[in-house]
């Protein structure tokens, strides 16, 4: 089996399925009653951290291609990005429905007043057009260059997501710092590459 077919028929489906394991796991825990005494908090935290983790995994595809030289792996970007968007949509829906009970004024006040929500909400909004333009058709319609420029916003959304996590934690910042470090590493890889390309 050549690399193209291996990626298309084995690696991509496997990665897509793997990215959906956390939601299956969460559903299982919900149904059998494995969640804590505050299940809404569990659902919010788990969808949020998985959304961020899968988003960072999406951002690591390009460096992975560069390191391995296995260009077909770039095909992993779309399913991973959409999976991240799926988790973050659930995360936002949980807040909307189970925390605010669809109170528009409540959400508005919250988002305006609380910096961690302002940045979290903004990051989610940034991801919406990216998810909508993820089809081949849209890539063609926008043109590769413009599409790529738009999708560079994913770094802004990821940085916002990390900040949202850092700002909401009470005092034990170990977990968000792990996410922040990975993001910084990915940004350094990306910027380092760009600088080298500039004419010197």
């Amino acid at each position, binding site marked *: 089996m050549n690399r193209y077919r291996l990626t298309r028929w084995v690696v991509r489906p496997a990665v897509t399925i793997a990215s959906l394991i956390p939601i299956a796991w969460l559903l299982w825990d919900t149904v059998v009653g494995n969640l*804590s*005494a*505050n299940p809404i908090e569990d659902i919010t935290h788990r969808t949020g951290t998985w959304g961020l983790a899968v988003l960072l995994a999406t951002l690591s595809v390009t460096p992975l291609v560069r390191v391995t030289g296995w260009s077909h792996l770039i095909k992993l970007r779309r399913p991973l990005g959409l999976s991240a968007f799926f988790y973050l949509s659930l995360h936002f829906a949980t807040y909307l429905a189970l*925390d605010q009970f669809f109170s528009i004024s409540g959400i508005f006040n*919250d988002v305006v*007043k*609380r910096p961690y929500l302002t940045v979290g909400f903004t990051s989610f909004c940034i991801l919406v057009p990216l998810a909508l333009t993820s089809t081949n058709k849209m890539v063609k319609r926008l043109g590769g260059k413009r599409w790529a420029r738009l999708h560079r916003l994913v770094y802004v959304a990821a940085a916002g997501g990390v900040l949202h996590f850092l*700002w909401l934690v009470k*005092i034990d910042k170990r977990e968000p710092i792990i996410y922040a470090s990975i993001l910084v590493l990915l940004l350094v890889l990306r910027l380092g590459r760009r600088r080298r390309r500039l004419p010197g």
Partner: protein
Amino acid sequence: MLIRRGHDMKESEVTDESFYWNRRDFIGTAAASALAAMAPLGPWLVRNGQDDKLTPYDSVTSYNNFYEFGTGKDDPERNAHTLQTRPWTVAVEGEVSKPKVFDIDEILKSFPSEERIYRLRCVEAWSMVIPWLGLPLASLLNVVEPTSRARFVEFVTLHDPEQMPGQRRNVLPWPYVEGLRLDEAMHPLTLLATGLYGKTLPNQNGAPIRLVVPWKYGFKSIKSIVRIRLVGHQPRTTWNAALPHEYGFYANVNPAVDHPRWSQKRERRIGKIRKQDTLPFNGYAEEVASLYAGMDLSRYY
């Protein structure tokens, strides 16, 4: 609401443990029927009652903030088995005429156990209703006779990273210290709890003896106490020292004063889906608001 029973209550009058366990079965059945009845979700979700039903024993003992055993809510239940609650002493000292080191069994024997059903409001905007067993703090303080120089009371948790693995990381400055003004400490609602649901206090809930101040955020109710010191100055309390802009010394439950990062207007009662309004002083304003007459509560948060 608050249920208080007389100081002279006999052991036999305390609610029998089997009653609680039956009650839990009942809650289980009720929860199952409630789930079955959830089909027409609408009205059920809209209901926003302030009925103070007891929070199930399992929730009270599995969802805890006790950083000495880890910062996750489920860490204390998993890790607190390493805590040795016997032998255990509580030193009551400082500005008192008769300082004394109490053995925990002596406390249990010489002070009649009272049951108090209190709301507990965490600063993180969730709450529970818990049937505690314990003694008014005032009863203990009266034995040691505070002097006229005593204005505040400082409480200290055990500091032993061997028994409390969470103390191996400096997530908070150890040991955990809390404090009250003397009049708050002497208030009849202020309890030293030694049990809950008619049973000995589980380790994850602050065994063998902890403070319960129902009108203040939960972090004031310090757990696993080894020292109580009467002092003339306001004690340097743990959360206040760690993040002074977020956690004040007073920490009275107050829906009008938000935490800098989140709202305190509403709370999620554990076991319920919809949030409910938070009450000033956690619903104990009638009993305690006078302690703060004339104070700017947004300044002394």
